[in-house]
């Protein structure tokens, strides 16, 4: 049996998630971009401009990933004033992997574990002051991570 306190706690937690969902994430999740099946259509749905290649984005990922189902990616963005970062796996069925937003007080750095279908570039776009910066890094995938079996 759940106690009344446990039930109340669960309800408050659920409400908090709903509240944070609308309070700060002013722009909602771009469903079309995440459902897009090519890099071009994902970026089209996101309506980001043409990126300029930049060495101010550092992507740390293994050169060779034994298991494409679990590839660690670490990104450091040194572009001043970056507010949003996009991560794409160029040959995945659904290429857009993550769309991150950073408030003030957060270092423009993150790490995330992603799935990669096959050997491809991981592409990172950083949006700052209306400009789009991009960098890529190739990861060789031994066993693809998107289809089990």
């Amino acid at each position, binding site marked *: 049996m759940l106690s009344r306190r446990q039930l109340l706690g669960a309800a408050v937690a659920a409400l908090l998630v709903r509240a944070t969902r609308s309070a700060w994430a002013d722009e909602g999740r771009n469903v079309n971009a995440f459902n897009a099946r090519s890099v071009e259509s994902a970026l089209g749905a996101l309506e980001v401009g043409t990126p300029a290649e930049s060495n101010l984005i550092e992507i740390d990922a293994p050169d060779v990933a034994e298991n494409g189902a679990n590839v660690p990616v670490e990104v450091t963005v040194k572009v001043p004033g970056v507010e949003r970062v996009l991560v794409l796996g160029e040959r995945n069925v659904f290429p857009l992997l993550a769309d*991150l937003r950073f408030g003030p007080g*957060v270092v423009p750095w993150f790490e995330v574990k992603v799935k990669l279908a096959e050997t491809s570039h991981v592409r990172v776009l950083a949006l700052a002051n209306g400009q789009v910066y991009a960098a890529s890094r190739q990861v060789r995938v031994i066993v693809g991570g998107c289809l089990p079996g």
Partner: protein
Amino acid sequence: MANNSFRLQAKRQADGVVLVKALIRHPNDNGLGRTAEGQPIPPHHLTQVVVSVNDQPVATLHSGSGLAANPLLGWKINARDGDRIAVSWLDNLDETGRAETIVA
């Protein structure tokens, strides 16, 4: 039912920045897989992760099905000792999870 348990750490590094690491237990199924019996496995993946400091959201991650199962996520934030760091998630089936820790 999603297993809501996940691990959250907030540790101050030598440079003063607080490293927040979240290990979220979630299948992140992309809907492309099939069971051994050939039945399609429906999509079940995280859609949003929010990091907050003392209930103020400071960073969000939106995702599709491309995160690894049980993904490890990390952010670096400026926070004071005693601040409450919370990470909450939402998935495509409207299931939620939340963990909280104190900066030490």
